[in-house]
């Protein structure tokens, strides 16, 4: 099993212009910093990016925005990013906003081979659009589709050489579902250990989902809103 690659540059090989790529993370928490940096340094453009958020102006997915590498962004919340707003308002960037739980479930379902499912979120709102509506237990639901991507990129705290992953605290967020939904899933981890060293009881993402893994470096782990008690 040859899953271990040298670094982010080797890991993102095969990501081409026009592809769909999913990124784990919530805000700047649990984002694959190394791969984002490597992508920003590449010449790949016209990406459709799926991620809960779009980063901030100079970090996270915001870096891909600034370099105009994104054609479309699929997210649930995109505040705190001026360049995003600008590109959205001028029509440079196509944007699809999806309720957060529906986004998470569409990714989970995609990875689990479920083509469609029904949820109540968005009924009667502009999210409904032309989606099929069905009433279950007296409550209207919208049909939503499972979602996959050419590449899925996640960040974990620990990983082993078989691709097993353990996330840390709320840095799990979308990573666990996203890891299942890429045709090729790349995992960057803070600490890569030989297989057998992680407790099998504690694995969040079993290695079957992960095609490439590497130990990242120089994690900044920026905090978006540092809040402390006085």
């Amino acid at each position: 099993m040859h899953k271990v690659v040298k670094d982010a540059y080797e890991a993102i090989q095969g990501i081409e212009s026009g592809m769909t790529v999913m990124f784990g993370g919530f805000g700047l928490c649990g984002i694959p910093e190394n791969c984002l940096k490597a992508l920003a340094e590449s010449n790949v453009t016209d990406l459709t990016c799926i991620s809960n958020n779009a980063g901030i102006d100079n970090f996270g997915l915001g870096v891909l925005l600034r370099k105009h590498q994104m054609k479309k962004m699929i997210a649930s919340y995109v505040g705190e990013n001026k360049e995003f707003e600008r590109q959205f308002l001028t029509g440079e960037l196509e944007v699809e906003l999806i309720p957060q739980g529906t986004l998470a479930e569409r990714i989970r379902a995609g990875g689990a081979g479920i083509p469609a499912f029904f949820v109540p979120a968005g009924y009667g709102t502009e999210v409904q659009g032309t989606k099929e509506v069905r009433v279950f237990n007296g409550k209207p639901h919208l049909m939503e589709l499972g979602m996959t991507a050419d590449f899925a990129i996640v960040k974990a705290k620990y990983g082993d050489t078989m691709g097993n992953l353990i996330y840390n605290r709320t840095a799990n967020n979308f990573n666990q579902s996203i890891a299942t939904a890429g045709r090729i899933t790349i995992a960057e981890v803070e600490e890569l250990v030989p297989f057998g060293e992680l407790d099998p009881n504690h694995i969040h993402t079993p290695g079957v989902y992960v095609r490439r893994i590497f130990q990242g470096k120089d994690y900044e782990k920026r905090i978006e809103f540092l809040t402390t008690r006085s």
Partner: protein
Amino acid sequence: MALDKNGIAKRIAQELRDGYYVNLGIGIPTLVANYIPAGMEVILQSENGLLGIGPFPAAGEADPDLINAGKQTVTAIPGAAFFDSASSFAMIRGGHIDLTVLGAFEVSEKGDIASWKVPGKLIKGMGGAMDLVASARNIIVAMQHTDKEGNSKLLKQCTLPLTGVNCVKRIVTDLAVIDVVEGGFKLVERAAGVSVEEIKKATEGNLIVEGEIPEMKG
């Protein structure tokens, strides 16, 4: 006198019950956590994957891997649990969260809520609000009764893009506690010193006033 933000939060805290699992939105709802009655066990859920939100960390102890849904650094209480986003919304959609408190731009007398988008203004997205309002067992809206220009936020029909339909059960504003019932907004309590007339004037939707309306208890 009209309540300030903390006053609204304090009144909403009276809705909490021992053993409740609660999701608090950003803004005034977050302040509710400061007024959980002593001795009452209330577990706060954060939709980014935490059950058991603790206080903000002490200076120097913030962990970038531990944030709330507002992306602020937080702590986790003893007995807390972490999970992924899909599980988090399964918890919400499955009806396991007892109460959701969130802010709003507008609420209609049918219980529709608009809270996420103002056309032509800032684009932010709905985040988890649509999922929460569509699935929580009980939804309380915390907001000012009128906007900065004095326009009512309790309307016959929402004018802004909706977050959800027919879902709000109770509204706590700076002026009053109001239930959404068949036929309109039922006045339940008024802020100390605020008259029914004042509330009526600030409410565009149909306000139902039955009998003597008590003042909120502090």
